[in-house]
């Protein structure tokens, strides 16, 4: 069992450090909550049957919600972090009601700018990458 480690300063971060794994809430209820808040009310996100009629495997977690998951994961690891950039590539569908895991690893530390770069991946239970992201985060010295 991995310990849940948080960092508050740049000096706490280690190169190659793995962020605590985050299992986001991909339930239909939570996705519906998100789509109402975001104004993205397409049935492909909120109705498995409607999504399948469009040729999809089921209702999809919106890409921007996956991007939000990545930011939340960073904040859970580093509550004092200021996110400067999050770049996400949507490689494959994140299907609603299926468990997913988000892993992250520190790939660069820049002491001059006070920033850390993190690579993040959203995977399903078959360990297939669905979303890949990189983030640049500023931490207090």
């Amino acid at each position, binding site marked *: 069992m991995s310990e849940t480690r948080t960092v508050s300063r740049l000096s706490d971060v280690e190169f190659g450090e793995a962020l605590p794994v*985050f299992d*986001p*809430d991909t339930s239909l209820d*939570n*996705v519906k*909550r*998100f789509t*109402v*808040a*975001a*104004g*993205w009310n397409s049935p492909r996100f909120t109705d498995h049957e409607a999504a399948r009629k469009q040729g999809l495997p089921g209702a999809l977690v919106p*890409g*921007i*919600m996956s*991007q*939000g*998951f*990545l*930011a*939340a*994961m960073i*904040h*859970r690891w580093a*509550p004092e972090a200021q*996110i*400067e*950039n*999050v*770049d*996400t*590539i*949507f490689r494959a569908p994140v299907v609603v009601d299926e468990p997913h895991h988000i892993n992250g690893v520190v790939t660069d530390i820049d002491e001059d700018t006070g920033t850390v770069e993190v690579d993040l991946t959203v995977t399903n239970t078959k360990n297939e990458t669905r979303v890949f992201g990189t983030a640049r985060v500023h931490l207090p010295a």
Partner: protein
Amino acid sequence: MTALLDLDAIRAEFLNKDFDEQTFTVDATKLADYAFACGEQAACYIDPEHPEFQAPPTFPSSLSPGRRLPEGFPELPGMGMDAGKAVAPIKPIRPGTTISAKTHLHDVYAKTGRSGRMTFLVTRMELYNEIGERLATADTRVVIREKPDGND
């Protein structure tokens, strides 16, 4: 035969020129729900009563321009697929803010492989508050697989 997009001509005519402007207002309850659904835990994102309450940093990605590409843009030679989104928060976005969002074509580039050329179009939305301060940028990338000779 469908010609490949002339990327130099596209850059000369369309790059870095605003082609859309929208206005958005942000509601505290929806911002809090957005953040909570994404898994945010900090009160500044999920509690509208918090003195530092603000939109979660990826919120700008949810805003859409009125059109995806500039008027007069050449017809795309294939289906555009979502190639990802990037967001760069600059200043906190507070509830009640009237956001002006201007969109321009930010980058056009191509990658060529064995299956042909893939052209990437990057549109950038820049968000400003009522006094003209830039709040964030949000990029959308679209990729088109070009098939100039009709081969699959």
